[in-house]
């Protein structure tokens, strides 16, 4: 056993660090937020050249993967430098299409993945395990939409049970996995319909809908279908200015066997959560590094504020939390690489922890910077917003916690 990145993986990480630091990502993020994608896309081309965009893509489709350990190492760097764009989604689409290919449906993989690896084709997706928005749909050539339900319309899929965990991927349906009593679930739907105020869209499919559908056993689980979006709704701004969210407008269905789509979607959800965890780890590290640097130089009461014990303790806690989150992310990578049956739980543990740590690091960073940290023009704000956004990406903290309990289920 050697539970450590090897020399080559470390060198890869360092070269990415150097490249991204030199590229000045905050400027690219700010432009990206305004819909000026030029500088961000230049960055993407360099990521493609470095092989980052092919880490989840098998060699048969132009990639070098799947290499989850390399992906963990690289995506931590992407988070650390706040790289804009659908990085997590690119990995998830690769997982989706390559899983379909392995199930005997190589068409979409052949069509899309070589271009993705080369950097010329950009893709994003929505999955039943995530929210209704496709990240950066406005700058993507392919927007994949996995929907549950008869019509494929949003909210049609009452069940929200993508996969059952047997495929080894996190599906964001933790509560369902835990098998809450179906009777409770029925009450859930009656009194706690997961509806977003305003448009009647389901807010939390996985919880609100899952159990009742189980109870109505004679009804089969609604089908899971794959579509390519024909367009997208207006861009919705996120607290992370680099995240441009839009609802896909359904286009044509990609005609594939339902069971293959269902399994691939669950697999993709696992990769999305995993990539997101690695990215969050980088976000937390950047917040810590920047804050440590700041409190060294900021002077109040004739002393660097970093000399005050209250300040030191919060930073020490942040460092400690990161120290214990990283092994979980790397452990998830190893499990994914091995195709271990427990990978879903490992991924969930990593996602819940890394995103929690990043979120707490953002609170600490803001607090210890004082008012300057609260301004949009100061770059720290980019990471503060990203930490909040990643927290709810691809499933809720509670969903992932529930799934992580499977680590210790016999």
């Amino acid at each position, binding site marked *: 056993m050697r539970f450590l990145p090897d020399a080559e993986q470390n060198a890869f990480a360092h070269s990415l660090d150097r490249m991204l630091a030199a590229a000045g990502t905050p400027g690219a993020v700010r432009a990206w937020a305004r819909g000026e994608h030029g500088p961000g896309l230049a960055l993407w081309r360099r990521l493609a050249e470095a092989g980052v965009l092919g880490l989840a893509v098998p060699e048969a489709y132009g990639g070098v993967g799947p290499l989850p350990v390399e992906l963990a190492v690289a995506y931590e760097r992407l988070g650390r430098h706040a790289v804009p764009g659908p990085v997590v989604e690119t990995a998830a689409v690769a997982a989706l299409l390559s899983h379909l290919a392995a199930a005997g449906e190589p068409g979409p993989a052949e069509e899309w993945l070589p271009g993705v690896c080369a950097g010329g084709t950009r893709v994003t997706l929505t999955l039943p395990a*995530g*929210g*209704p*928005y496709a990240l950066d749909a406005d700058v993507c050539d392919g927007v994949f939409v996995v929907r549950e339900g008869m019509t494929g319309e949003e909210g049609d899929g009452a069940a929200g049970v993508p996969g059952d965990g047997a495929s080894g991927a996190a599906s964001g349906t933790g*509560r369902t996995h835990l098998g*809450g009593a179906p009777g*409770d*679930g029925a*009450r*859930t739907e009656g*009194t*706690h*319909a*997961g*509806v*977003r*105020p*305003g448009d009647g869209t389901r*807010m*939390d499919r996985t*919880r*609100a809908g899952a159990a009742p559908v189980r109870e109505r056993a004679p009804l089969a689980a609604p089908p899971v279908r794959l579509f390519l979006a024909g367009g997208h709704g*207006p861009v*919705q*701004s*996120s*607290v*992370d200015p680099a*995240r441009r*969210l839009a609802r896909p407008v359904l286009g044509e269905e990609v005609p594939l066997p339902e069971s293959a789509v269902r399994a691939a979607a669950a697999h993709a959800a696992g990769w999305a959560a995993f990539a997101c965890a690695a990215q969050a780890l980088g976000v937390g590290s950047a917040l810590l590094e920047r804050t440590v640097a700041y409190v060294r130089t900021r*002077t*109040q*009461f004739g*002393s660097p*504020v970093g*000399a*005050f*014990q*209250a*300040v030191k303790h919060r930073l020490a806690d942040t460092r400690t939390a990161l120290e214990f989150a990283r092994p979980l992310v790397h452990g998830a990578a190893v499990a994914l690489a091995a195709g271990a049956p427990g990978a879903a739980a490992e991924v969930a543990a990593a996602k819940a922890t890394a995103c929690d740590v990043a979120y707490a690091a953002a*609170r600490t960073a*803001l*607090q210890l910077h*004082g*008012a300057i940290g*609260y*301004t*949009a*023009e100061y770059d720290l*704000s980019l990471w*503060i*917003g990203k930490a*909040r*956004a990643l*927290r*709810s990406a691809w499933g*809720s*903290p*509670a969903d992932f*916690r529930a799934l992580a309990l499977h680590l210790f289920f016999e």
Partner: protein
Amino acid sequence: MDLDLTPEQEDFRAEARAWLAAHVPEVPPRSLETREGFAEHRAWERTLAADRWSAVTWPEEYGGRGRSLLEWLLFEEEYHAAGAPARVSQNGVCLLAPALFAHGTEEQRARLLPPMASGATVWAQAWSEPEAGSDLASLRSVAVRERGGWLLRGQKTWSSRAAFADRAFGLFRSHADPGRPPHHGLTYAMFPLDAPGVTVRPLGRLDGRPAFAEIFLDDVFVPDADVLGEPGRGWRVAMSTAGDERGLTLRSPGRFLAAARRLVALWRATADPDDTALCDRVADVAVRARAYQLYGYGVAARLEAGGTLGSEPSMSKLFWSELDLALHGTALDLLGPYGELAGTAADAPEGGRWADGYTFALAGPLYAGTNEIQRDIVAERVLGLPRGMR
């Protein structure tokens, strides 16, 4: 010990409730952090003032109702329960007015308070400087003696609402007192934000909205009539209202009761009751809001009986700022994938109220003296522990 209201207090509460029901605008004004929204909030202050609701604890001669702190707490509960707009005049009413009552001249009170009550003059606080945050006493902006007044020079920053406000009050170094602690020799001065020599640069807070501003002062003339308290003794004037800035009067319990009620409603509408972790967090918020309400009643009773607050507002500040964060953080978690939407996003639930509230709550542990400083104050002044290295 009881929680009973007198018939007169009941009447007052009922009167407030009825007035609010009849006057609170159905369509809430736009964000305070926009020019149009600021004007709409200012208009709301005028509406409040027309029926003497803008400063109920002030004496009647200045536009108030001469009401007690307890009655103000009741008014605040009604105000927030009615979903009434944020108070654009808060800096003036909460911070400057108490200083005027304690240290101002009769002429200053008569001249400054009525337009403050009506929203005709909106005030900004100009204390902080780039190098003087927690260590406010180290401030460097100066007031230089000039015939009939003072010339202000230097830079202030993080001044809330200064982007659109009319006047500001601040502290300036006026007397070189070598060898004496830095809070000696400061003067409390008031100045118009459009005076010659004043430059205001709005700063975007986390969501980009210009919630505060930098203020550059280049020989801005302030007549003696606009100095509050004795020149050189401004620290005492400023600190006499620090408790008002931190405690109950800045963020009343009513505000959190109303928000906690909305949170519970959101939970009932959206959450899975089997998610006990979220349920615990919602319940915690509800309990803390209730604790703050009861605490407020206790404070009011103590003051009524002639007691004083001392350093207690530091504990209030710690309590309400942490509560606000817990409340809004829980709401965003309840909103699932919609929790990351910016307040301005078309899809943002409840018109972005939770998102904006969260952004605002993030600043709570910073402004009005950071929570690290408040904990030191509680430890040293309430518990009597030895003074640290500060």
